[in-house]
């Protein structure tokens, strides 16, 4: 069943159209990857799903994005953007833990949404850290500043911080671009693990990564969604010439 339904979506930065008539539906409990050359609009599209583009001035979006049947682009005052972002979380390109302790990083979402009594807090933090396989490494260092962790640990911590608030959808914006190949492999392993409980959408410019981890793949070019389908089909039997040129490395 489709959890995200994008219908006829256009996005303009001032006069520049960054996304053109995109239609696509994202299935629950699958990994959907978005590929395409830099500037093709894949990150912009991803950031529409939790309205992270709201802070950019001069942006205009038309069309519809339904998540669980609710139009999230509604501009009326009653629509609760904070609640949407709790449901649709995001991990960024550069690991960006807060300059707080490891524990406070994970507890942040629980505190702001009042999801736990203080007595339950440490249990939930442990659970989240275990889910991203950081618990064994960090259980004695929960009071350390999160900025002192390695890059990979920081990125894992960002995922732990996110799943602590129990989102439905996790958006990953080139989550491995700052990591080395070994750390990347470990994060990919984590994605496959998380797929059981969450719907994951990942933007990546690493085609091999998309081929390795994702179930569905969308190829974007100059703001258009050129082709969207099963990952195996996109990489082995693309219907569009442009897709074929891109996945075979003829450009991009």
């Amino acid at each position, binding site marked *: 069943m489709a959890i995200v339904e994008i219908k006829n979506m256009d996005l303009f930065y001032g006069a520049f159209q960054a996304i053109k008539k995109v239609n696509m539906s994202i299935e629950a409990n699958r990994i959907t990857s978005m590929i395409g050359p830099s500037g093709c609009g894949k990150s912009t599209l991803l950031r529409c799903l*939790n309205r*992270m583009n709201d*802070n950019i001035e001069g942006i205009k979006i038309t069309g519809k994005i339904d998540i669980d049947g609710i139009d999230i682009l509604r501009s009326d005052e009653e629509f609760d953007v*904070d*609640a*949407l*972002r*709790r449901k649709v*979380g*995001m991990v*960024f390109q*550069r690991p*960006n*833990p*807060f*300059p*707080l302790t490891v524990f406070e990083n994970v507890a*942040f*979402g629980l*505190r*702001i*949404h009042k999801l736990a009594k203080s007595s339950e807090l440490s249990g939930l933090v442990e659970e989240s850290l275990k889910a991203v396989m950081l618990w064994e490494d960090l259980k004695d260092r929960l009071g350390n500043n999160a900025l002192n962790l390695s890059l990979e640990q920081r990125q894992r911590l*960002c995922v732990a*911080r*996110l799943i602590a*608030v129990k989102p439905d959808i996790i958006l990953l914006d080139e989550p491995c671009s700052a990591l080395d190949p070994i750390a990347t492999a470990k994060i990919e392993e984590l994605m496959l693990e998380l797929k059981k409980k969450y719907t994951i959408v990942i933007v990546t410019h690493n085609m091999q990564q998309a081929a390795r981890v994702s179930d569905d793949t969308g190829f974007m070019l100059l703001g258009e969604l050129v082709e969207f389908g099963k990952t195996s089909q996109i990489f082995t039997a693309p219907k569009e010439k442009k897709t074929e040129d891109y996945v075979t490395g003829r450009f991009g």
Partner: protein
Amino acid sequence: MFSRKVTDSIIEKLIFASGIAAILLVSLIFFFLLREGLGFFSEYSIKDFITGHFWYPTSKPAAFGILSLIMGSLFVTLGAAVIAVPVGVMAAFYISEVAPVSVRDVLKSGIELLAAIPSVVIGFIGMVTLVPLVRVMFDIPTGLSAFSGSLMLAFMAMPTIVSISEDAIRSVPWTYKEAALSLGATKWQTMYRIVLPAAAPGILAAVMLGIGRVIGETMAVMMITGNAAAIPESIFDPVRTMTATIAAEMGETVKGSMHYKGLFAIGLVLFVITFIINFIADTFLNRVKK
């Protein structure tokens, strides 16, 4: 025609000389202060000086107790801090996080402009507008009080506190805010839980520098605090600060007399206090840079 190397070495020497001159002048001031002030303590005990209640420098026998002056400075400074710190920090948050860009630029330069108003002008404005108002509003015999002084000094400390705090708040990386917002935090939660702790060292330094300015301020307090050298019982009593005492009496003393040296000793106490405050502020500012 000088070669480039000669020009270079001349300019280098000039810059070196200017730097040395600045350091030399400051140390001369310090040694002068130390000599005159310490000379006082060979004749008058430090304990009586700091804890004595009476400042009667021209009576016979003279009394040089500065407790009332320390209390005066303390009342005015604390009062100013209580007003200026919360208002200043909130203003800084408004300017950097809430205000639209056009408003932000106008406000920031406006507030920095406030720092350029000479203190005698602020004192004068306070004297003709604030002092009568305070007298009527609180129904006290005179509006020349620690409270009026605190209000005016809060006004003078505000530009420092707002401007430096705003810099600290604005230097918090956008990625932190983005992360907090993406977790569903409201704007307020982001400011309070993430931006404030991240900017805290810079804000503390701003507060310390603001207080440093307040404690050293002379002209405005002399004009509006009433200058009664008595230990104040409430914030609405007239007080006299250490700085105002030096400024008011220095012209009337005989050079080399006990009174003269006593004023230098007050200067020494003031120097120690401001040195400690600046040292704390510096420590925090350095921590920010790291």
